[in-house]
């Protein structure tokens, strides 16, 4: 059996371990498994294709260069990667806030958005799942969904959100906790 076949049969954790051992073929497969999720999250946060590509590239290469590698106590491999993507995307967002967007950027995005066109079936499935998850998040009380989205996708701290919404810090913390616990409970009850 060829190496590619064997690699393809590995679970995410084993694959991540091989990536940690600097195996190029494993890294290639690791990219193929997770690039769509990583790029989609980056795009959701930074809002344009060029910046999303940069963020995705930085995140994957930081894993490739990492000495510490994947640590199972930090959740699933996908969750670990997306945590890195999210933090880099928020950094990009903050850097951009310091340097205002150029007016013509939208046109560049339209050109840059052309995709490879592969894996459209898998993409359709992901789209369906994503829309179900969004509906579930949307069923949270609006004020809970709002603080969670501002924090996770907007990169605002609890204190910043409190100022933004003109509510006490304790209220923001409470809404965040209740909302996240509701999502988690729904997950456990298989509602999601």
């Amino acid at each position, binding site marked *: 059996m060829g190496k590619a076949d064997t690699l393809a049969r590995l679970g995410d954790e084993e694959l991540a371990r091989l990536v940690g051992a*600097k195996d190029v073929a494993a890294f290639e497969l690791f990219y193929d498994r997770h690039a769509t999720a990583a790029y989609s999250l980056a795009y959701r946060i930074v809002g344009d294709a060029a910046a999303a590509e940069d963020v995705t590239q930085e995140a994957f290469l930081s894993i490739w260069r990492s000495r510490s590698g994947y640590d199972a106590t930090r959740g699933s491999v996908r969750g670990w990667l997306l945590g890195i993507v999210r933090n880099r995307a928020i950094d990009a967002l903050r850097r951009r806030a310091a340097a205002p967007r150029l007016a013509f950027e939208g046109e560049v995005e339209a050109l840059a958005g052309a995709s490879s066109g592969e894996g459209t079936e898998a993409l359709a499935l992901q789209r369906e799942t994503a829309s179900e998850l969004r509906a579930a998040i949307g069923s949270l009380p609006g004020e809970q969904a709002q603080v969670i989205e501002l924090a996770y996708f907007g990169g605002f701290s609890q204190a910043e959100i409190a100022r933004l919404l003109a509510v006490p810090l304790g209220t923001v913390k409470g809404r*965040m906790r209740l909302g996240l616990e509701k999502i988690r409970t729904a997950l456990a009850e298989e509602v999601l």
Partner: protein
Amino acid sequence: MSQHERMVEELAGYALGALAPEEAAALEGHLRSCERCRAELAWLRPAVEVLSASVEPREPPGRLRRRVLEQARAEASAQGGRLRWRRIGALRPAYALAALAASVLVAGVAGYELRGSGPQATTTPARVTGLASPGTRGALVRFGDWGTLELSGLPPLRRGRVYEAWVSSGGRVRPAGVFEPSPAGAAAAGVTGLADADAVMVTVEPRGGRSQPSSPPILVAPVS
């Protein structure tokens, strides 16, 4: 309010990346010594994964793949050439297909000759039930009448418990063997007699396995 109670309040904010750096550092200090908070945080994490999985999926452009992989290869060769691929974990030599016919096949990670002659493989994702650990994933890779249930993210079981695979057909359920995952939580269980099967599933059973499931499945893969 005790320090623990104050810190519990911060866990959701931490999981969402919404703490100021000094607050995050304080919480991380507390987490090192507080098992309850670590458990609570581990419980919350999948909710954050739901957020990231809820975004509208977009196909990354092919040029991004080229860029990332070229850069990775360049850095690898700069570091002294290609590292040899090595087997990891409890990888074992290829099992004979006869072992599959005996219906049970277990290993830490994949490493079997499964792509010989014979029917084309079809892969069906398994449905993970609420009883499974949040990170558990599975898929049935089927080659006609037989196949393997490929699993990852299986948590270790307490002593005296094992995972057991089952094949269900026409309302009857028959055992397909017990197995233990690798330390990283991966396993591949061989299953046969799929021609007339409706589904393959996995339950947690007492050591030695049972002839009928004694608990609801943690995972079900339909046989299409």
